[in-house]
């Protein structure tokens, strides 16, 4: 006997909520990946889907990768993108500009699921989010006590994580120390943070005099939430200042950077812009708008940053 039928809510038609969806024929696998996805706290403007299967990834194409970065190799052509991981056999196929990826994880990759998520699946999510209008930039984000949004860009040893953690110790709001996404917001560009621990090496821990934190053994680092350090989390910022940071031995100081250098540096820290031609125009437009809306500076970080007080607010009042 059929059950009672409810009144169809005409005012609320069926909708698909934006988000990062995970599907798998293996419910346990989906259940294992979902907490990692949820922890990113990303709510993209259009849904993206990871379709995960366990199996043997296909062989690499004969030609060299379009792009390589530590642990990841990317091939792109008109048919779409293919991403692989060097930690264990794993591949993701993204057809055309569709917002779904078919991910094949080997049993060896499943044995290293934490690393697989943090390195490989994050790379897949970055490619998927491009298709939803969010473009990755390798940068840290924060909001200072005056409410100004900061973007800290630089290479892996440029002090981004330590600076982000330092900001939190001074009561700033901090979004991410590494993984951010440019998002159009009317005539401005905002930057969305992927939630994750601010990951400090021992040197950063010592500079901040923080013996506590959560060990991240596979990375050889220690993790902190902004809240652990006296700050709060900022899921999204509107950048007013871009600081291209580097670590120096003298006093902390700031210097000017030209618009041309700013654009070039933003391109440098947004390598994906170059590797998927169909999305390059949108990405480049966001980078140009970002450079146009912000004050840019070179920031050389010195040991005096860690003295009492807020040196950055003194240098950039």
């Amino acid at each position, binding site marked *: 006997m059929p059950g009672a039928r409810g009144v169809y809510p005409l005012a609320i038609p069926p909708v698909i909520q934006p988000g990062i969806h995970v599907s798998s024929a293996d419910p346990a696998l989906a259940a294992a990946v979902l907490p990692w996805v949820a922890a990113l706290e990303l709510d993209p403007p259009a849904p993206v889907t990871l379709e995960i299967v366990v199996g043997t990834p296909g062989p690499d194409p004969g030609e060299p990768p379009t*792009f390589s970065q530590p642990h990841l190799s990317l091939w792109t052509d008109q048919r779409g993108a293919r991403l692989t991981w060097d930690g264990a056999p794993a591949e993701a196929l993204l057809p055309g500009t569709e917002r779904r990826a078919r991910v094949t994880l080997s049993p060896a990759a499943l044995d290293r699921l934490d690393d697989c998520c943090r390195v490989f699946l994050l790379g897949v999510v970055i490619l998927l989010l491009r298709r939803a209008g969010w473009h990755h930039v390798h940068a840290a984000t924060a909001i200072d006590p005056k409410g100004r949004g900061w973007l800290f860009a630089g290479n892996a040893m440029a002090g981004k994580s330590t600076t982000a953690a330092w900001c939190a110790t001074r009561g700033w709001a901090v979004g991410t120390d590494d993984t951010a996404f440019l998002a159009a917001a009317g005539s401005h560009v905002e930057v969305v943070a992927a939630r994750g621990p601010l990951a400090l090496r021992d040197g950063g821990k010592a500079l901040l005099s923080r013996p506590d934190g959560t060990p991240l053994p596979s990375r050889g680092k220690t993790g902190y939430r902004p809240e652990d350090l006296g700050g709060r989390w900022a899921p999204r910022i509107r950048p007013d200042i871009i600081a291209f940071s580097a670590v120096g031995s003298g006093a902390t100081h700031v210097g000017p950077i030209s618009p041309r250098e700013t*654009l070039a540096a933003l391109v440098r820290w947004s390598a994906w812009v*170059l590797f998927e031609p169909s999305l390059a125009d949108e990405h*480049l437009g966001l980078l140009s708008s970002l450079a146009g809306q912000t004050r840019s500076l070179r920031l050389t970080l010195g040991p005096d940053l860690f003295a009492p007080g807020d040196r950055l607010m003194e240098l950039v009042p």
Partner: protein
Amino acid sequence: MTTTFRRHPDLRLAALDGEGVVLHLGSRKYFTVSETGVAILDLLEQPRALDQLVAGLMERYDVDAAHADQSVRAFLDRCRSAGLILESES
């Protein structure tokens, strides 16, 4: 016989306060570009001969023909070696 120049279709230009960055999506390289370089690349949205580029530069800037010609030739040489422009004879 006249040689005309135009941007490579894989070229993308982002300009800010006159200066800019050029991406070549095929070679996956990028270059910074001065204000006058951006002006020439703007002109190269349409196929142009050398004398048209020189005239276009002289319209935008207070520069004599000899200096503009020298600047355009030098810039085209750099663009040619980077694969940023295409040339055709007509």
